[in-house]
């Protein structure tokens, strides 16, 4: 029986200071986060205790360092948790925004967009303290077009009982082909000779293997990081690194919704047909360059299929699955829009300019090119490709398309504004965010699966949250309302 698909996104943003050639991106990322957090809340340190890759390297004494704020003791990098339950921190040389846990794709679209607004706000606040009118510009994309990539990851809660080898087998063909409607579009590639070519995916060029643990080299289509941030006996967190940074809300919605559906089907052993590609990595890259979406690719069993055929097959298996299994409240909308996308790809991909990033961007570039008689290699078009992902509402070209009614909005701006400060109500993010809002002076640290209180006693009090669906508004709001202080809350929780 499939488990609820708790999900979140993590986005690394590209940053630059056009007026300063020797700008340091690590310090710049820290500045953005600190500038935002300084005004948002008392900064709470991230608790690394349950993060296995870092645990050994970063042992620290919470009692001596509690209250130090956002600065990580070892590296001096900003790392904060916000009242909406999100984590905002420096990862390598990028500011990274991890949304709070959500139970459905529409709410996650809202929180993903709230992340864009938080980055834009950070940029404005950072500009106030930067010298000489310098400004950090921020892009929600995945590559500089010079061989470097940074990620837009998704996370889904998966039943630990599912054998991982089957999960990999069943999801690979879906991951290779979902770029048809999830690709963010890229003018050019990473190697000489690709200038002036347009491809569907920002990320496809960077993937080298089918399965693996790495995220920065030899990138795998299915990432095997096993760090559930929840009860490891019951759960796995599928860490998805194959995705592009979407600006289109519909594309984000579909990326999350279809993947969540396929994962539920895998849990219930409902992937009954094998569409394994003869060479997944080659097919992934070739599909990215097939903007007509008509080429065929060889499967391991000898058949040749189009990418859209594989997506239709998953769609059809999903229909059969939901004829036998109860759908989630969001299932019907995902299924309908998934159908619309695949029908559009079949007819003419260009008809999807209002929903799919790579098509929206292509039509804009092509229109501008024809109007101004430019070559595809023209730097103005490359600038437009980059600026499509600019997080400034008045400069970002995806936002320009949205304002002009050319890119469909799925969620209203009020919800996005609320999500900048309020957590989702139906996951543990509610407890995390609400505690931050109410008891921040007495919180020493927090993480995905714990909040650590400092109530002035000798020992810090750690409240574990290993169940992502506990700590919801329904579950804890009455308790939080009754407790005026952190000490009361801790005592009630222990009682």
């Amino acid at each position, binding site marked *: 029986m499939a488990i609820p698909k708790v999900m979140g996104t993590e986005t690394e943003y590209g940053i*630059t200071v056009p007026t300063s050639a020797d700008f340091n991106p690590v310090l710049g990322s820290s500045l953005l986060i600190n500038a935002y957090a300084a005004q948002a809340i008392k900064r709470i340190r991230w608790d690394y205790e349950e993060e296995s890759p870092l645990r050994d390297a970063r042992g620290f004494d919470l009692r001596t360092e509690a209250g130090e704020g956002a600065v990580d003791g070892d590296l001096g990098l900003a790392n904060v948790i916000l009242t909406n339950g999100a984590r905002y921190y420096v990862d390598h040389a990028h500011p990274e925004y991890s949304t709070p846990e959500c139970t459905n794709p529409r709410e996650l679209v809202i929180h993903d967009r709230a992340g864009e607004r938080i980055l834009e706000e950070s940029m404005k606040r950072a500009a106030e303290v930067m010298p000489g009118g310098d400004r950090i510009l921020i892009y929600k994309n995945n590559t500089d077009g010079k061989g470097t990539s940074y990620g837009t990851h998704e996370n889904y809660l998966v039943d630990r009982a599912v054998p991982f080898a089957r999960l990999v087998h069943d999801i690979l063909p879906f991951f290779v082909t979902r770029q048809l409607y999830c690709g963010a579009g890229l003018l050019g590639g990473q190697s000489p000779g690709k200038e002036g070519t347009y491809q569907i995916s920002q990320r496809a060029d960077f993937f080298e293997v089918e399965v693996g643990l790495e995220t920065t080299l030899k990138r795998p289509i299915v990432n095997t990081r096993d760090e559930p941030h929840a009860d490891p006996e019951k759960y796995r967190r599928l860490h998805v690194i194959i995705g592009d940074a979407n600006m289109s809300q519909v594309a984000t919605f579909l990326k999350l919704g279809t993947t969540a559906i396929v994962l539920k089907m895998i849990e219930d052993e409902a992937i009954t047909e094998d569409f394994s590609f003869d060479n997944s990595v080659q097919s992934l890259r070739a599909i990215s360059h097939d903007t007509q979406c008509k080429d065929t690719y060889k499967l391991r069993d000898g058949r040749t299929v189009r990418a859209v055929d594989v997506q239709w097959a998953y769609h059809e298996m999903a229909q059969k699955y939901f004829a036998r299994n109860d759908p989630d409240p969001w*299932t019907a909308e995902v299924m309908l829009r998934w*159908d*619309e996308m695949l029908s559009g790809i079949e007819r003419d991909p260009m*008809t999807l300019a209002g929903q799919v990033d790579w098509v929206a961007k292509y039509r804009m570039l092509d*229109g501008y090119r024809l109007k101004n008689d430019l070559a595809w290699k023209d730097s103005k078009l490359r*600038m437009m490709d980059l600026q499509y992902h600019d997080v400034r509402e008045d400069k970002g070209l995806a936002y*320009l398309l949205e304002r*002009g009614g050319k890119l469909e909005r799925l969620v209203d701006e009020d919800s996005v504004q609320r999500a900048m400060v309020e957590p989702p109500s139906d996951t543990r993010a509610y407890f995390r965010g609400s505690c931050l809002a109410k008891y921040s002076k007495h919180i020493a640290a927090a993480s995905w699966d714990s909040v650590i209180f400092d109530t002035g006693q000798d020992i810090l009090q750690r409240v574990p949250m290993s169940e992502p669906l506990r700590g919801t508004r329904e579950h804890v709001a009455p308790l939080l309302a009754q407790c005026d202080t952190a000490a009361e809350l801790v005592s009630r929780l222990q009682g």
Partner: protein
Amino acid sequence: MSKTGGGQEKKKRQGGGGEGDDDAGQTQTDVAKKAEEVKEDLDELLDEIDSVLEENAEEFVRSFIQKGGE
């Protein structure tokens, strides 16, 4: 259990996939309409791009160099 019945009902509302039933027909009309709306005045928008596009595009794009992430 009403499980099977519930599932069937949902299936119907989802539009029936590529099987050419009424719902799917409706879907295609909607998409085509959306596409037409998009086409109509992209021209106006292209003019607006000139007013927001970064100056010195060539230099800007050349100096946009990122370090790896993830």
